[in-house]
C-alpha cells in the first residue's frame, strides 16, 4: 500500500497537524514504508478470530453514579495557555 502526497495531506488534516506542502512527499514516503511493513499481517489466517478488546480479561468495576470530586476550577484552568473569567479561551469557533 503506497501513500501519495494527496493522501498524506488528507491524513495530516485529519490528525490536525499542519504539514507544509514541501514536506508532504517525504511524509508520504515514510508512511508508505511503515504501511509496507504492516502488509505482513495479511499473511496471517485470522478467520474466526475475534479482535482483542482487553488483554487481561476482567469485568469492569462499577461504582455508584455519584459526584466524587469537583469545585476545582482554579486547578483545572491552572495550566491553560489562555484562561479568562473561569473559562478556557479559544479563537472564534462560530462566525
Amino acid at each position: 500500500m503506497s501513500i501519495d502526497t494527496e493522501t498524506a495531506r488528507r491524513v495530516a488534516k485529519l490528525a490536525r497537524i499542519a504539514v507544509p506542502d514541501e514536506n508532504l512527499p517525504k511524509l508520504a514516503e515514510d508512511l508508505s514504508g511503515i504501511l509496507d511493513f504492516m502488509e505482513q499481517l495479511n499473511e496471517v489466517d485470522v478467520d474466526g478470530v475475534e479482535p482483542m478488546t482487553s488483554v487481561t480479561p476482567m469485568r469492569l468495576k462499577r461504582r455508584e453514579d455519584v459526584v466524587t470530586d469537583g469545585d476545582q476550577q482554579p486547578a483545572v484552568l491552572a495550566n491553560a495557555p489562555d484562561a479568562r473569567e473561569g473559562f478556557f479561551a479559544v479563537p472564534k469557533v462560530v462566525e
Partner: protein
Amino acid sequence: MSELTKLTIADARDKLAAKEITAVELTQSCLDAIEAADALGAFVHKTPEVALDQAKAADARIASGTAAPMTGIPLGIKDLFCTKGVNSQAASAILDGFKPEYESTITQQLFDAGAVMLGKLNMDEFAMGSSNETSTYGNAVNPWRRGNDDTALTPGGSSGGSASAVSADLCLGATGTDTGGSIRQPAAFTGIVGLKPTYGRCSRWGVVAFASSLDQAGPMVKSVRDAAIMGAAMMGHDPKDSTSADLPVPDFEAMLTGDIKGKVIGIPKEYRMDGMPDEIETLWADGAAMLKDAGAELRDISLPHTKYALPAYYVIAPAEASSNLARYDGVRFGHRAKLSQGDGINEMYEKTRAEGFGPEVQRRVMIGTYVLSAGFYDAYYNRARKVRALIKKDFEDVFASGVDAILTPATPSAAFGLGEMADADPVQMYLNDVFTVTVNLAGLPGISVPTGVDRQGLPLGLQLIGQPWEEGDLLNTAYALENAAGFMEKPQRWW
C-alpha cells in the same frame, strides 16, 4: 564521588535501618552525583528541595520505627509521570511548562512509602522511540562506552534517562514505563535490571498515556532484589484506573529463594533471528545453561506468530496514540502556537500540534489516524487486533503445556551510537523492540537481567517472560539467573 550512591536499594534500606547512614546523607550524595553528571542528560528537571524535605521526613520516620522498605530511598522519576507542582512534560515541547495539579498514583504510592524524588528523567517524546533521541530536552547518553572509544552511545529508549541515571549511580532506582520494550531495552543497554509487570499491576492514573492497552510502569534498578522491593511499592489496585487489577501484591522479596529446581524454561525457536549477532546467540545459550545448572528443565517451544508482533504493534500502538494525543490541542494545557490574523480554531490546533510534536510523534499520530480512518479500519486496525489475539494465544498454549517462564535475548544488539540510526528508515529503529514487544501485546510480565558484555565491553541482557500475575515466580527465576551470571561490571566514569 561518594560510594553511597552505588548502594542497592536493599543495602541502603538495611544501612538506614541500622542507623549507619541517614536518608539526608544518601540523598545529598545523589544530588551531588547528579550535579556532576549533566553530560549524561539524564535528569531534566532537578528537585533538590523536594528531595531534601522528603529525606528529612524519611529520617524522622525511620527514627520513629515506622519505616517501609522504600523509606529514604532516592529515586529518579521518568518525565512521563505527573508529579504535582513539578514539570511533567513527557519530553515533549507540547507540554512545555506543564506542572500537574495532581500526583500520579505510582509516585503517590512511592512517596507514601517514604521514597525520595531527586528529579525528573529524560525519555523519548511521549515514550515513542528506542534511543532517547526524540526528546525535546536533547539526548540522554549511555554511561557505557565501547572500550576507549569516546563515541556517545544511546542508553536506549524510551526510558533512556532512567537507565542512564541508574547505571551511572545517580540514584538508587528509577521509574520507567514500557509500551513495547521501553523498560527492558534500555535496562539491557546499560547493564541494569528492568521489570515490566503484568498489564494491570501498576496504575496508569497520572502517567501520560501513549498506548493505553500496552502501557505499563515498572522499576529500573541495580538488582533483581531491588526490582522486587521497588516493584511491590509501585503495584496495587487503584480505583482511578479501570484496568487496574484488584489482586493482592505478594511479598516478592520473600519469594527470592534462588531455588528453581524443576521449573520449566521455554526457549522459543522463533526468537532465533536471521542475522542475529553471534554474541547474542552465545549469551542466550549461556543463560539457558545457567538455568539448567540451577536445576531448571529447558524445553524447546514455539510461539508461531512472533514474526507478526512488530507489525501488529505498529498498527495498534499508533492507533491508540492518535486517540490519546488528541487531547494536546493548545486549549487546556501546554503549548499554544502564536496565531495569525484571521486564524480560527482549526489553525490553532494544526499549528499548535505541528510546533509541539516532534517528527516521530507526528509520524505515529498520522499512522494511527490512517489505520483508524474509514475504509482502513478493518484492513489494518481490526486485523492487527486479531493477530494480537493469536500472539496472546501462543503464550497461553505454551504456559498451559507446563512452561513456567520463557528465556529470550532482551535486544538484538548492544547499545548503538547516538545518531547512527539517523538515516535509517523508521522501521529499522522499530526492530529494536523485536524481542520485547510480544510481551506487551500479550500483557505478560517480563524482566531484563544483565548477564554479560560484548567484545567491546558493552553490557548485554537476557529477558525472562512469566505468566500473568506471577511476578514473584518470575523474579525468583531472574534472581537465579542473576546469581549464576554474576554480572558485576560498571561503566568507567568519564562524565
